[in-house]
């Protein structure tokens, strides 16, 4: 066939546009929302094919591929403990950790009460979903509202990490879907950690032995124990050598970075985003006919409970002698609480871990999607309370 200039031009445009679009989607975290949108449309148009497809891949996505996402999140947290990171030194985390008590307890209590009031008592076991905070969305929305480098941003990130950590603990302890066999699996997990520690002491710089050796053993340990195997790399990542200084939360590793942790991120960044896309496809498919009044329980719990809980938690911390960061007052806490209400990726993960496919999971997942209303509500609250970019004061230097 003749290869005319028009065809060559088209091929060139495709070759340059596809990577550019991919980069844009990854950098702007669009693949998870895109996957969720695909799922919502698909399940309401052709439910049978949607369920056949998603049931076939759900284990591979939820229990295996999502390992990459949580590994990269763990890497961000581990690097944040390095000099320059939001978790360095550790005592900086004390206030958000104390505040997270209010931010988790109040929404959980409201959720349990709301689903009783809304006559859907079967949803009450889903309270750990109300603990979820999507760190990436929190970070980006907080940057939009408060501008970069506002001290409330690391505060919110720490709060999100503490809340999610409590959520994962709750998931392990109160998950009716999984029977936990801790005694039989402690040895396996200890073995995985020993492998990772040995690799580090041997100064192994490639991430592959950490992933295939320690990671595989850890995955089987998590799976065997009844804990969620998507978390298998969480105890392994801290053993990977990482940069001496934290480049910043959600700042991509430079291609020139040579440390093991950055190499791991560079290699797995795009596959992790693909995993997030399929995670959205598998877990956000909510048939509208499945929804009942109980769907409203979660969004109400987090949108009301997180700002109030944050005020209460911060109050407790202040009573305990801790201090709020500079330029963070009750108005910033209310707006921050609304931002932290968005559970999205972690919320969908908790929902799928707690509920098998069916009406309750659909209702909880829709509740998680509705919690994204936290973003516009935070913008409105920021405008009303005159905080962040609406404060009318001088700009914070970027």
């Amino acid at each position, binding site marked *: 066939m003749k290869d005319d200039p028009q065809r060559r031009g088209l091929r060139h445009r495709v070759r340059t546009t596809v990577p550019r679009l991919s980069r844009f989607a990854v950098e702007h975290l669009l693949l998870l929302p895109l996957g969720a949108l695909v799922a919502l449309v698909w399940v309401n148009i052709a439910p049978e094919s949607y369920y056949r497809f998603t049931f076939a891949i759900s284990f591979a996505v939820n229990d295996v591929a999502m390992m990459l996402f949580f590994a990269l999140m763990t890497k961000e947290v581990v690097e944040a403990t390095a000099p320059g990171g939001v978790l360095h030194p550790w005592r900086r985390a004390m206030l958000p950790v104390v505040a997270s008590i209010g931010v988790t307890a109040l929404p959980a209590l409201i959720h349990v009460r709301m689903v009783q009031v809304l006559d859907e*008592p*079967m949803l009450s076991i889903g309270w750990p979903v109300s603990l979820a905070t999507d760190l990436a969305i929190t970070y980006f929305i907080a940057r939009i509202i408060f501008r970069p480098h506002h001290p409330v941003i690391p505060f919110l990130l720490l709060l999100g990490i503490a809340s999610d950590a409590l959520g994962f603990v709750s998931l392990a302890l109160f998950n009716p879907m999984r029977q936990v066999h801790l005694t039989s699996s402690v040895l396996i997990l200890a073995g995985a950690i020993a492998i990772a520690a040995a690799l580090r002491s041997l100064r192994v710089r490639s991430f592959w032995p950490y992933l295939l050796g320690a990671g595989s053993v850890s995955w089987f340990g998590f799976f065997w124990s009844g804990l969620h195997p998507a978390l298998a790399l969480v105890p392994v990542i801290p053993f990977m050598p990482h940069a001496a200084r934290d480049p910043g939360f959600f700042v991509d590793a430079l291609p020139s970075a040579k440390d093991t942790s950055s190499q791991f991120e560079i290699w797995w960044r795009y596959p992790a985003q693909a995993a997030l896309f399929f995670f959205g496809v598998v877990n956000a498919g909510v*048939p509208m006919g499945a929804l*009942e009044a109980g769907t409203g329980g979660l969004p109400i719990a987090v949108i009301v409970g997180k700002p109030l809980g944050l005020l209460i938690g911060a109050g407790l911390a202040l009573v305990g002698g801790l201090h709020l960061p500079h330029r963070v007052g009750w108005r910033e806490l209310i707006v921050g609480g609304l931002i932290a209400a968005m559970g999205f990726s972690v919320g969908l993960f908790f929902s799928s871990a707690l509920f098998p496919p*069916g009406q*309750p999971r659909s209702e909880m997942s829709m509740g998680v999607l509705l919690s994204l209303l936290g973003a516009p509500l935070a913008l409105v609250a920021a405008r009303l309370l005159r905080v962040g970019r609406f404060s009318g004061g001088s700009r914070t230097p970027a």
Partner: protein
Amino acid sequence: MRSHGASVSLVSTGRNLVRTIALLVAVASAATFGQPSLALPNRPDSLKFAAIGDNGTGDRPQYDIAQQMNLVHGTFPFDLVIMLGDNMYGSQQPADFVKKFEQPYGPLLSAGVKFQASLGNHDRPENVSYKPFNMNGERYYTYARKNVRFFVLDSTHMDSKQVAWIESSLQQAREDWKICYFHHPLYSNAERHGASVDLRVQLEPIFVKHGVNAVFSGHDHVYERLKPQQGIDYFVSGSAGQLRKGNMSPTDQTAAYFDQDQSFMLVEIAGTELYFQVISRTGKTVDSGVIQRQSRRSQAGQKPDSP
């Protein structure tokens, strides 16, 4: 977990009085509504049961349906009621178990009729321990009556363990008839909820593989009889208390439906035939027919099922 034993003892002193009142109400209603005419063979050695779904409102329509059940029990002595979930709505305190269960069905309970419940999305998980529901603390369970084995599922929480259980239980069953019942319908043409396709994708291949004969569900507050789907007869009977009037949107899957008033089902299994009759709140028969077990061919207007 809440102790239902305590609740039962609390009301035990008033129970006889409640039952007497309920009996009087039943007699009075017989005079008001009239006895429903029976469209079932009513053979002496057959298995007879009733099916109710979405009943536990504690409101007048639930009591009306209960009265119709009492009335028909006089001529059609069923000794089993299968409950298709949402057995209790709203508050589920001890007094509610009296108002929404023990009082309306008091005469049947006094007559020794056994209720075997499945849970719906409005039921509290701890209701599995409420003795009159006969669930023995289990979300899903199986029992046999004569030549029929019933499989009761918790469709609100269909985890992989339960799916494995139903597969192995069906495989082991040796009775002539296999009947499954649970709350969420695998097929439904009601507008509000419709079919639970996620459950259908999981359960239907198992039901087909192991020769389930009939499936009863609730959730949609209407009555619908489906044409056999892959050889299985499906009934939606979710209006023994609740009602979504005019909510049906029948398709070519629909064999019969009724969405104008509350209703309940009567079923009689005699040998290789399953007879059914659907009675409305006012005692009118709104659907009836028979299913042949071997060919699963209904004489009530359905097309023969695919082999």
